[in-house]
C-alpha cells in the first residue's frame, strides 16, 4: 500500500484547518487552501493561539503550506489525498471537484468532510475514474482530539482507496475508522442529532430545569457532564437549525428524527439575541458580573428565556445509580430519563443495518464521536432488552426488529474470554480488533491478574511480557500503587516475566500522588508516616530502573507528578501522542519527591545537544518544575526532556500497548540494567543564589507569588545540590535525600496545605 506522503485540505474553516493541523502533527506535509485570500494563513496563525491547541508542537505548523484556492490550486498536484472541507452545499462541492479534476494527479484520493450530505449526491456527474477515487471522510470537531473518523465509500469507490485512507487515518492520524453506510448524518450525527432534539423537547415538555436535564443526561447516561444544554452551548445553538434543515431535506418525512424537529421559541429568541453559547454572549449557561463585581453563574429559565441564578439540581431520582431504577422513578427526572431513553434507544435499534454494518460500529461511533461512556446498544444491555421492549410497547411505540430478535440475551456477551456482539444473522460474532491493536480490556476478559490490590494490577499480556495497570480514582498513586510496583519488580526478578509495560486504559495514565491522603496525613501532623511514604516511593522508582528486566512506560492522557516520575525511571517510553506529562508539584506548593527533580536534572545533564556545565541543566529543570509546566503532547514532552529522543510516539491510542510491548520485547533481548547513575556536578550555593535572584525578578514583575518564592527556594536548594561546593559531585542518594527534606519542609507550611486543599476542592491551582 502506497503511503500518504502529502495531503491537501481545501477550506480553512475550523474543520479544514484542524484536519490540516492533525496531518501536520503526524509529520506529513499538508497544503491548506481557502477560497478567501489569506484565510489559510490566518487560520494557522489562529490555531497557534487556540486552546486546546490543534498543533501538537510548533514545528508542526511549519509543515502546513498555505495558499489561496484560486491562485494556488496547482499546489494540490503533489498531494496523495485531497480532503475537501468547504461549505455544506452539494453544488459548491461538486463545482470544486470539477475544478480539481485537471490538477489532481492520477491515483490521488479525493474525499469530502461533509457531515450531512450523502456521497451519492456529491458524486453526481463525476467521471468514473474520479468516483473510484472518491469517498467521505467525516472528522469530528476538534479533529486533533476527537478519535472518530466516519468513512463512507460509494459503489464506485475502489476498495484499495478506502483501505489506504483508513490505514493512514488509523496509524497516522490516530483515528478509529468506522465504516458507515451512505445515509444522511452517517452514524454519530444521525443518532446524536436526534438525541439532542429529543432531549430538548422532553426537557421543555416535562418542565425540567436546564440543570436538572443536564444532570440526568450526564452521569446516569454516561454522557459528558455538559449533558444536553451544556453541549448545545459548546457547539453553538445556531448550529441546530442548520443541521435540522439539512437533515430534514435528506431524510424521509416520517423518520423519527424529522418528526422530533421542533422550533422552541425560547431557543430561537436566544439565537436572535446572539446568546448562541460559549462562542457568543453565553447560552443556556452564562457567567455574569453582579452589581458588586462578583461572579455570578446564571442559567436560562426554559419557560421564560430569562436568566436566573444557577441552581444545583435536587431530584430524588438523581441519587439513583441504576439506570433502570432512574427510568422507573416517578419524579420528573425519572420520567425525563425514560422518555429520552425510549427515543434514543428505539431509534438506534431501528437504524441497524440502515446506517452501519453492526451494532459495535454504532456504539463505537457514539463513544468516540460524542464521548459517551456507553453506546446505545451498551445502554440497552444495561437496561435489559426485555425492559426496553416492554417499555416501548407500553408507550405504544414500535419495537425494532433487531430488538425483537436479540430476545433475552444481551447485544454483547463474553464467550471464552472474548467480547462478542449480536449480529444481524441472529448469531454472536467476535468484535473485530484491527491487526496491531492490543487492548488491556480484552486481556482482562480472558485472564486473571498475576497480582492485584485495590490500586493496581499486574497482567500477563503475552510472550512473557507483563503489564502493570493502575486503577485507583484518576489513577492517583497511593501506598497500594507503591506496594504493587514493588510486587511487580519482585515477581520480575523471580522470572515471572521478561519485560514490564506500565499502561492504563483509563482517561489518564496517572494524575500523581493521592493528594487527599497526603493532605489528611499532613493535617493530623503524621510527618513520620509521610516521610516514610516518600522514601518508599523513591525506593520503588530506583527498583524499577535497576530491575534486571526492561520496563517500558506507555502513557496516554495525563502523566503528572508521580505519574511523570514513573516514566522518568522507565528504560523506554512508548507514549500516546496525546500524553500530557509534567512535574506539577509546585502548583500545590511542593516539589517532586519521588526522584523527579533528580531524574529531570539528569536528563538535561546527559543530553549531548543541551548546553553543558553545572548550571544549564539545573536552570532547565528549575524552569520546568518551578512553573509546573505540563507538556501538551508527547512531542512537547520530548522538547522538555521528559521523553528521550529514542522514546516512541503512537498516534492511535488502541495501538499504544502493542507497540510498547514490541518495544519491551526488543529491549529484553540481551537486556542489562542501566549502569549506576554517575554523580552530578552541580553549581551549589552560588547556583542557588542565582536562581533565587531570577525568581525574585519574576516576583517583582508580578509573575511569582509569595509562596512561589518559598517553593522555588526549596527547589533551588534541591537542584543545586544543597549548598555543596561545585567541585563535589552529588550522588543520587544525596539528591534523593534533598528531595525528601525539602518536600517535607514545604508540606509543613500552611500556604502549601492551602494550595493542596484548593486543588482538591476546585481542581485549580491557588495562587497564594
Amino acid at each position: 500500500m502506497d503511503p500518504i506522503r502529502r495531503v491537501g485540505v481545501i477550506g480553512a474553516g475550523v474543520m479544514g484547518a484542524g484536519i490540516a493541523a492533525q496531518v501536520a502533527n503526524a509529520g506529513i506535509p499538508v497544503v491548506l487552501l481557502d477560497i478567501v485570500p489569506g484565510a489559510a494563513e490566518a487560520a494557522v496563525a489562529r490555531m497557534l493561539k487556540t486552546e486546546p491547541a490543534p498543533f501538537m508542537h510548533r514545528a508542526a505548523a511549519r509543515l502546513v503550506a498555505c495558499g489561496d484556492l484560486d491562485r494556488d490550486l496547482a499546489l494540490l498536484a503533489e498531494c496523495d489525498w485531497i480532503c475537501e472541507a468547504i461549505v455544506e452545499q452539494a453544488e459548491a462541492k461538486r463545482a470544486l471537484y470539477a475544478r480539481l479534476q485537471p490538477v489532481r494527479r492520477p491515483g490521488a484520493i479525493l474525499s469530502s468532510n461533509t457531515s450531512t450530505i450523502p456521497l451519492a449526491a456529491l458524486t453526481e456527474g463525476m467521471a468514473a475514474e474520479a468516483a473510484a477515487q472518491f469517498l467521505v471522510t467525516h472528522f469530528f470537531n476538534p479533529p486533533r482530539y476527537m478519535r472518530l473518523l466516519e468513512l463512507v465509500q460509494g459503489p464506485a469507490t475502489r476498495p484499495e482507496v478506502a483501505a489506504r485512507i483508513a490505514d493512514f487515518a488509523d496509524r497516522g492520524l490516530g483515528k478509529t475508522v468506522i465504516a458507515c453506510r451512505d445515509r444522511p448524518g452517517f452514524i454519530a450525527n444521525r443518532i446524536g442529532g436526534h438525541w439532542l432534539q429529543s432531549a430538548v423537547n422532553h426537557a421543555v415538555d416535562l418542565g425540567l430545569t436546564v440543570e436538572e436535564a443536564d444532570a440526568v443526561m450526564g452521569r446516569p447516561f454516561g454522557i459528558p457532564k455538559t449533558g444536553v444544554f451544556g453541549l448545545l452551548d459548546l457547539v453553538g445553538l445556531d448550529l441546530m437549525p442548520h443541521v435540522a434543515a439539512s437533515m430534514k431535506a435528506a431524510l424521509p418525512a416520517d423518520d423519527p428524527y424529522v418528526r422530533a424537529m421542533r422550533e422552541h421559541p425560547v431557543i430561537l429568541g436566544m439565537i436572535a439575541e446572539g446568546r448562541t453559547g460559549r462562542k457568543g454572549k453565553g447560552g443556556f449557561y452564562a457567567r455574569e458580573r453582579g452589581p458588586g463585581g462578583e461572579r455570578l453563574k446564571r442559567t436560562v429559565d426554559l419557560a421564560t428565556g430569562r436568566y436566573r441564578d444557577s441552581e444545583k439540581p435536587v431530584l430524588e431520582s438523581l441519587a439513583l445509580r441504576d439506570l433502570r431504577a432512574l427510568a422507573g422513578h416517578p419524579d420528573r427526572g425519572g420520567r425525563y430519563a425514560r422518555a429520552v431513553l425510549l427515543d434514543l434507544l428505539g431509534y438506534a435499534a431501528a437504524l441497524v443495518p440502515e446506517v452501519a454494518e453492526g451494532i459495535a460500529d454504532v456504539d463505537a461511533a457514539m463513544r468516540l464521536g460524542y464521548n459517551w461512556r456507553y453506546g446505545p446498544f451498551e445502554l440497552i444491555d444495561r437496561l435489559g432488552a426485555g425492559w426496553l421492549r416492554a417499555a416501548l410497547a407500553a408507550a405504544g411505540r414500535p419495537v425494532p426488529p433487531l430488538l425483537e430478535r436479540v430476545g433475552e440475551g444481551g447485544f454483547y456477551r463474553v464467550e471464552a474470554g472474548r467480547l462478542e456482539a449480536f449480529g444481524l444473522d441472529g448469531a454472536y460474532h467476535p468484535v473485530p480488533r484491527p491487526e496491531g491493536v492490543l487492548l488491556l480490556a480484552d486481556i482482562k476478559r480472558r485472564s486473571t491478574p498475576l497480582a492485584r490490590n485495590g490500586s493496581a494490577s499486574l497482567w500477563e499480556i503475552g510472550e512473557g511480557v507483563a503489564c502493570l495497570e493502575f486503577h485507583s480514582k484518576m489513577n492517583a498513586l497511593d501506598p497500594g500503587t507503591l506496594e504493587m510496583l514493588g510486587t511487580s519488580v519482585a515477581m520480575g526478578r523471580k522470572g515471572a516475566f521478561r519485560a514490564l509495560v506500565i499502561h492504563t486504559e483509563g482517561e489518564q495514565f496517572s494524575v500523581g500522588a493521592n493528594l487527599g491522603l497526603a493532605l489528611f496525613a499532613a493535617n493530623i501532623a503524621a510527618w513520620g508516616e509521610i516521610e516514610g511514604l516518600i522514601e518508599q516511593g523513591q525506593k520503588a522508582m530506583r527498583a524499577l530502573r535497576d530491575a534486571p528486566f526492561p520496563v517500558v512506560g506507555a502513557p496516554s492522557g495525563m502523566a503528572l507528578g508521580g505519574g511523570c516520575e514513573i516514566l522518568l525511571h522507565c528504560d523506554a517510553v512508548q507514549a500516546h501522542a496525546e500524553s500530557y506529562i509534567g512535574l506539577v508539584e509546585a502548583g500545590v506548593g511542593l516539589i517532586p519527591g519521588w526522584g523527579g527533580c533528580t531524574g529531570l536534572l539528569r536528563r538535561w545533564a546527559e543530553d549531548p545537544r543541551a548546553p553543558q556545565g553545572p548550571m544549564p541543566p539545573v536552570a532547565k529543570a528549575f524552569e520546568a518544575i518551578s512553573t509546573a509546566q505540563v507538556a501538551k503532547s508527547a512531542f512537547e514532552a520530548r522538547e522538555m526532556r521528559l521523553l528521550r529522543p529514542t522514546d516512541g510516539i503512537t498516534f492511535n491510542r488502541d495501538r499504544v500497548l502493542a507497540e510498547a510491548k514490541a518495544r519491551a520485547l526488543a529491549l529484553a533481548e540481551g537486556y542489562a540494567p542501566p549502569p549506576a547513575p554517575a554523580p552530578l556536578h552541580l553549581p551549589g550555593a552560588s547556583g542557588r543564589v542565582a536562581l533565587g535572584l531570577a525568581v525574585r525578578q519574576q516576583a517583582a514583575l508580578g509573575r511569582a507569588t509569595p509562596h512561589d518564592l518559598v517553593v522555588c527556594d526549596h527547589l533551588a536548594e534541591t537542584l543545586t545540590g544543597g549548598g555543596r561546593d561545585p567541585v563535589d559531585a552529588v550522588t543520587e542518594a544525596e539528591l534523593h535525600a534533598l528531595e525528601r527534606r525539602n518536600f517535607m519542609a514545604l508540606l509543613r507550611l500552611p500556604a502549601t496545605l492551602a494550595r493542596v486543599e484548593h486543588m482538591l476542592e476546585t481542581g485549580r491551582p491557588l495562587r497564594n
Partner: protein
Amino acid sequence: MPLYDAPLRDMRFLLDELAEAGRLRALPGCAEVTPELTGPVLEEAARFAREVLLPLNQTGDAEGCRLENGVVRTPAGFPAAYRAFCEGGWTALGADPAYGGQGLPRSVGLLVEEMVCSANMAFGMYPGLSHGAYSAIARHGTPEQRALYLPKLASGRWSGTMCLTEPQCGTDLGLIRTRAVPAGDGSHRITGAKIFISAGEHDLAENIVHLVLAKLPDAPPGTRGISLFLVPKFLPTEDGGPGARNGVACTGLEHKMGIRASATCALAFEEATGWLVGRPHKGLAAMFTMMNEARLGVGVQGLGIAEIAYQNAAAYARERLQGRALDGTRAPERPADPILVHPDIRRMLLTMRAMTEGCRALCALTALEHDVSLRHLEPEARQAADDFVQLMTPILKALCTDAGWEAAVLGMQVWGGHGYIRDNAMEQFARDVRITQIYEGTNGIQALDLVGRKLGAHGGRYLRRFFHPVLAFIEARQDDPAMEPFLLPLAKAFGRLQQVTAELAQRGLRDPFEAGAGASDYLRLFGLTALAYAWARMAELALPRAGEEAFYRAKLATARFFMQRILPETSSLATKVLAGGSSLREFADADF
C-alpha cells in the same frame, strides 16, 4: 439548700492567663475586655446566681410549670427573677450594641452562662433559647427583621424558641411535615405540630418569637427542602409592640425527669403568620449556624451541673464523719474522720474536679476561637478559628455533658443514701443534667457529626487546627524536665489519636458503618486528648506559682491526677475503635 460559690478564681485564670487574654483584647470591640471590666461583671453574675437563681432551683423543680387555659404558668418566683435578670442586662450581655446589647465576647458570656446553669439550669433555658433566636435572626434575617426583633430579644422583653422537632421527626429533620404556604403579601401561613419546644409558651416575656422549620409547597424532598420561618406569638404592631394573637397555641406540657421548671411545650401552628428567614430551602443551614452555638451552650449546661455537684460533694465529704483513714486516724478528737480521707472518695472528687476544670478550660479555649472567628480582621485567622470551633463543638457537647452526668452521679455517690433523698438536691442535679446528653443532637449524633462531617471536611483541615498546635506545644517543651509528667502522657495520647484518626478516616471512607461503629469511642478519645492538652497548658502556667497560692498548687495536683488516673482511658478507647464494627454488624437483628 445546696451551696454554690461561682468558681471565679478559676474563671479569672482561664480568662486572663490561659486563653491568652492579649489575643482576645486585640480583637475589634474587645479592647475594653480587661480584668477591671470583666471582674465586676463576673462577680455580679456570681452574686445573682447565688442569691436570686439558686433559691428558686429546688422550689421550681418541685412546683414545675402548669398549663391553664392555653397559658403556661412558670413556678413561683420565676417571673420576678426573669425581670431582674433582664434589668441586670444579662440577656443583652453578648448582643450587638447596635441593638441595645453590651457586645461582650463569648469568652465572657460562656462563663456567665455556666453560673446560671449551676444555680438553676431550668431557669437558664428561657434566656438560652432567646439567645439562639437572636443569633439566627442576626445572621440570616433581613434588615427589617433585625431592626424589629433584635432589640426586643436583647432586652429580654421578648423571648425566643427553636421549633424543629415533630412527633414523627427528631434527628432526621428531612421528615418534617409542617407546611408553609405563601400568603401573597410576603408572609407565609404556617401549619403543623411541633413538640419538645423549650420555652414554647410561658409568662415571663410579653411576646415569644418562634423560629420554625417548615416546608414550602415546592420544597425538594429531604433536608434540602427545609426553610426557616419567624412566627411571633403576637403579631407586631406598627410601632413594634405585641399586637394580635397569631395562630400558634400550646396544646400540652411534657412531664419530664428533670428541668421541670422549664416549659417543654407541644405547639400547634394553625395558619399562623410567619416570615421567611434566609433563603428558601436553606433553613437547615441557617439553623445549623446557631445549632453550633447552642451545642456549645448545652456543653456548658453539663459543665455547670458538674461544678455545683462537685462543690456540694466536696462540702459534704469534709463534714460527713465515717470510719477512719486507712493510713492513720486524722481526727482523733472526733468520733470518726471526715470521709474526705478515704481514697475512693478522693478518687470520685478528683475525677469530678479534673473533668470539670478541664472541660471549663477547653470551653474557654473554644470560646476564644469563637470570638476570633467572629471578630478578627484577617479572613484566614477567622477561618482557622472557625475550623477549630467546628471541630470542637461536637466534642465539647458530648464530653461536657457526659462529664456533667458523671459528676452528678458521683456527687450522689459521695453523699451515699442521702444523695438519693430529694431534699438534699443531689438527685436533682442528675435528673436535670441527664437531658443534656440527649437534646440538641444526642451525644451519639455528636460523634457521627465529628466522624462524618468534621473529620473529612476540606481534606481534614479542621483537624489541623488541633493537631498542629498540640504537636508544636509538645515539641517545644520536650527538653523541660518539669513538664515531663504532663508532656509524656499527652504525647502518648496524641500519638494514639493520630493513629486512630488516620485509621478511622480510611476505614470510614471505604465503609461508613465502620466510621459509625467507632464514632462514640473516638469522640471520647479525642475529647480526653484535648483535655490532656488543656491540662498540660494549665500545668505549665501553674508550675512556677504552685508554691505561692493554693489555687496553683491544686491546679498542678489535679493535672497530675488527670494524667495518671483519667487519661489512660484513651488506651482502651483506641483499642475499642480499632477493633472495628464487625461485632456490631454481625449480631442478627432478630436476636435483639
